[in-house]
């Protein structure tokens, strides 16, 4: 393998793939960065086996030559030394060559490094993009999907499948669902017609991977291509491929959890309600569950209260736009409620209650795409 490359470009790619590399891996080869040279360009890969990031440097872009004198080949180099070497090289361009014993030679100006590499055959084989099961989304929309669901994944390992976000495509909609069995967050978006023949059901993406992906992709309107294989999911932007392993197992059926009808419906300003609950939770913090109580009052008013005998008590009154249906007294976790309200950007929010012991639904008014469900807490 041999190529000559712009140092800054290589450095940028290295920084991308380094995000996937962890020092605590069980497989020794994963401490390295895989470098692959093809006639089209250079591809770097970093992985901790859960998440893999590939960064591609095309040979030529917008008429500018990025990489020259390519002889195809591949090698794995130590990620502990390689980035620092590249960063500190004296010239703007550098040359990398390898021999058949996986010795890597890096030259730039007067400096010459010899690094011991490893056989790229030892590196895990990552799935490649299949066009027949892929679809496209806009970057900012994907980020929104992630942000609106990933907070609700379970953090405890008792039911590992719940640490992921379930991605489902049916009747021309894509659904993202996350739950930790106390609350549920879901978001759906309509898909364009030509993608409607796609159908996934049991795709569960680890919440950690999605949080990582959210950090990596830029907030713009570029297209991102998503492709699902048997074991992995691939997110592909222009030159960056992000792969995550899927979670193994069946995601529980969540649609049955959502109550069909409601007994009490509250329509109120999102921000006002959130702030009121936030204040009420100040004193509830001492309590283990961070529980606040919500009560409907006459004249479309809500009373939110919390009482911790050792600390004190708080009462908040919120004037709502409308309260329809039966009177209600309900207790729930303020943290879950705040989480749910935080991701709603609309000014008005609609809450559907079905009694004090039944889960309730929070939706932005006039928007069916977001649905949040919270289980109440039993108090005496």
């Amino acid at each position, binding site marked *: 393998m041999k190529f000559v490359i712009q140092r800054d470009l290589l450095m940028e790619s290295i920084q991308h793939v380094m995000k996937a590399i962890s020092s605590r891996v*069980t*497989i*020794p*080869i*994963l401490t390295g960065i895989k470098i692959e040279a093809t006639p089209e360009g250079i591809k770097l890969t970093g992985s901790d*086996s*859960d998440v893999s990031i590939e960064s591609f440097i095309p040979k030529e872009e917008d008429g500018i030559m990025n990489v020259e004198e390519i002889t195809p080949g591949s090698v794995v180099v130590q990620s502990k030394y390689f980035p620092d070497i590249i960063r500190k090289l004296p010239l703007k361009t550098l040359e990398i060559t390898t021999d058949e014993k996986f010795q890597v030679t890096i030259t730039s100006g007067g400096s010459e490094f010899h690094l011991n590499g490893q056989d790229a*055959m*030892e*590196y*895990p*084989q990552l799935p490649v993009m299949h066009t027949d099961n892929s679809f496209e989304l806009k970057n900012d929309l994907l980020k929104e999907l992630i942000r609106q669901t990933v907070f609700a994944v379970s953090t405890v*390992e008792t039911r*590992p*499948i719940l*640490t992921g976000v379930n991605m489902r495509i049916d009747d021309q909609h894509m659904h993202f669902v996350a739950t930790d069995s106390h609350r549920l967050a879901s978001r759906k978006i309509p898909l364009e017609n030509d993608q409607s023949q796609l159908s996934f059901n049991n795709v569960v993406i*680890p919440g950690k991977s999605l949080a990582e992906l959210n950090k990596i992709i830029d907030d713009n309107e570029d297209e991102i291509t998503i492709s699902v294989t*048997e*074991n*992995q999911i691939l997110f592909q932007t222009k030159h960056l491929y992000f792969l995550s*392993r*899927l*979670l*193994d*197992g069946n995601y529980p059926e969540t649609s049955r959890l959502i109550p069909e009808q409601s007994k009490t419906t509250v329509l109120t300003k999102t921000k006002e309600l959130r702030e009121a609950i936030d204040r009420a939770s100040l004193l509830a913090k001492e309590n283990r569950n961070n529980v606040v109580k919500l009560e409907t009052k006459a004249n479309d008013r809500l009373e939110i209260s919390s009482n911790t005998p050792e600390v004190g008590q708080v009462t908040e009154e919120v004037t709502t736009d409308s309260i329809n249906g039966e009177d209600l007294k309900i207790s729930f976790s303020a943290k879950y409620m705040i989480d749910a309200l935080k991701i709603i950007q609309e000014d008005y929010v609609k809450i559907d209650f079905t009694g004090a012991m039944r889960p309730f639904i929070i939706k932005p008014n006039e928007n069916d795409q977001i649905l949040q469900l919270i289980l109440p807490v039993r108090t005496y």
Partner: protein
Amino acid sequence: MVNWQQISETQPVASKMLTQMIKQDRVAHAYLIQGDAGTNSREIAKLLTKSIVCRYTRDANPCQACADCHRIDSGNHPNMHWIEPDGLSIKTEQVATLKKEFTYAGVESNEKVYVISEADRMTTNAANRLLKFLEEPGEKTTAILLTENSYGILDTILSRTQVISLRPLSHMEIERVLIEEGMTADNARLFSIVTNDLTKARELDQDEWFAQARKLVVQLMSILRANQDEALLFIEKNWLDHFKDRDQLDRGLDLLLLWFKDIIYLHVENEDALVFKANQEDVNACLWHYSRQDATHILAQIMNAKRELLQNVHPTLVMEELTLQMQR
């Protein structure tokens, strides 16, 4: 690289069981491979992993040439997880990472294998966490637990695994392994006969006490040949000083037993079977002194001495009596 045919030379039963299961595609979800040190249980675990993961497995034997096989050998296969004791024991965190690993889909194919070597060194907590996960195995997940001591494994784990017992090595095999490891042929022969455990044989090779014991046996025999009268004195002064407790005395008697066996071997001109090869000349010198009948008689006496020691007869008396028998 080993294949099942090679394994079947030393472990016919285990290899037959495993190959049958692979051929019939009925690999169990968990195995416990139990065998003494030197029974290459690690090789068997690797081979089994290869047979499961390799896509070109023919007749239970993996191809040994594809990328999968190579990476299993180098420990770089992402679908194989090998857990070794971290320090003295296998800790809960190690089992926890393993557990996390297996909630994910496989990196490449779906077949996932985890190997826990020295599984008896799992802490109780770690073992209990593993238990949950042995109970509800993933679809294509195989666990291979290795141990030298299946009594150190929790019963609850034992009952959830298929136990494959490896046959202990014979003297000849131990000797061969020891020579391969670079021990001299003489020492390898002696140690393989004194103990049938590879680790213990390796320990004996490093043991000052044992070297000295050997020297004493040679000295005692030369005294018995040259000036018999001093033999009792030697026993009193040197022998009992070195062989202190009952186990050590028993060891000493074992060595004497081997020596007289050697005398008989030389009488019947079976030199290959000789244990004290390095001291062949000394043994040879004894031939004039002890006839075959004498040697047989003394062997019986040594056995008797060993029995007496077990019956709590005073060690000095046992040794003195034996020495008198040997003085002739």
